[in-house]
């Protein structure tokens, strides 16, 4: 099975965010497992025809979110955190939202906006403490 990411150069979403969001989604749904290696920054940037700095930033954001870890000589490894693995109910709800959006003929952007609106309505979640 091959796992792919797509970017749209015309999208208002920054390219690094498109890459970050897709890899985060792939980790969350389990298509990328704990310990899986991601391609090197240069290889993925070459494949997508974008600057290596864009991929590097996406990887940095993923690392900051605890979804991947970068190690010298090994590369970037997926570290699926328990937080994303045990939250079955939100995952099921998200799946239902996606299915419903397809049935109702909503665009991806509209579905994203709906979720963003719901998140705003329920206030900001408590940020996890970061060890200094």
């Amino acid at each position, binding site marked *: *099975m*091959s*796992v*792919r*990411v*797509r*970017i*749209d*150069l*015309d999208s208002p979403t920054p390219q690094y965010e498109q890459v970050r*969001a*897709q*890899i985060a*989604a*792939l980790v969350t*749904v389990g*298509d*990328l497992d704990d310990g899986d*290696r*991601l*391609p*090197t920054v*240069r*290889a*993925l940037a*070459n*494949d*997508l*025809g*974008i600057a290596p700095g864009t991929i590097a930033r996406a990887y940095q954001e993923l690392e900051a979110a605890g979804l991947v870890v970068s190690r010298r000589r090994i*590369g970037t490894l997926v570290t699926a955190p328990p937080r994303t693995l045990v939250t079955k109910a939100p995952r099921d709800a998200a799946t239902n939202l*996606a299915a419903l959006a397809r049935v109702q003929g909503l665009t991806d952007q509209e579905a994203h906006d709906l979720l963003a609106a719901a998140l705003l309505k329920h206030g900001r979640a408590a940020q996890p403490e970061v060890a200094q």
Partner: protein
Amino acid sequence: MSVVLIGLSLLVVGGALGLLWWDQRRSVAPNDAARRAVRHAAYTSAVAVACLAGGLLAAVGGQDSGVMTGMGRLVAVVPAATGALFIVAHAIGDLTWPGPQGRQREADLEVRTVSGIAPTGLARWTWTMGALLVVATVAFGLAASGPRTISRTLENGQTYTLGSFPGWWFGAPVLIATIAVALACAATLRVIAARPAVVGTSTDWDMWLRRRSARRVLRGSQLVACMTLAGTSLLAGTTVRSLGLGDTQGFYATSVNHGYVVVGIIISWLALAVLAAGTLVALVPVRDHAPDPEAAVPSTERVAP
């Protein structure tokens, strides 16, 4: 002789380019991007082969015409220098590899490593030849009695010295050139592994094209390593044999030492064997056809929501 040399040069370069053209024509390319990629790879290899063959033939011509007489050190590093040109041509070709076009792009999250694209046997052979060259150069340097001479002690206590022998005079530049070629080869293999994937092709097809590029780089690298090893070993073997035979006609009539003669002959034969093996590995085709896009089973694809 120069006409023969020019004719031979044209024959070798023309043959190599013809082989590349034929290889490009028979390659199965599933789409236009793939055809462009195969063509780019063929042009890259054509330039690289022209650099390699041109450099080697220029050196042969220089030797033949006497221009390079007395330039032993230069002759010793010619294979490595032309090999470096060959590798640099490949590196430039892969750094300028056609990237994806269009506003919507996608990429496999596939990890590509050098070990994944370089044929294992060929890679091992190439590194072994490089290591053997380093070991042989150091051994000859240690065995030498001077920068480019070797000696043996006669029965009467006097020493009998002969040259040219690949001591440190030849060994130092050969070592530096060998290390430079090895580093360039390793770096180019990394470039091949990281170059853009060919749009609209399966992972298998893309990896096949990378394997082919890596194989060409390794073949050229091992060829220059084998040529340098064969050249230095042949020089060493011939000199050691002459040292063993002695100079029965000279002022100091020296006796024959059969040990030196046998060692010299063995080294010379080993040198010829290494040259033959390197040439065979460089030229013998391998069975690694492009995956047929018609027969390929489409892989399951997962894209982030």
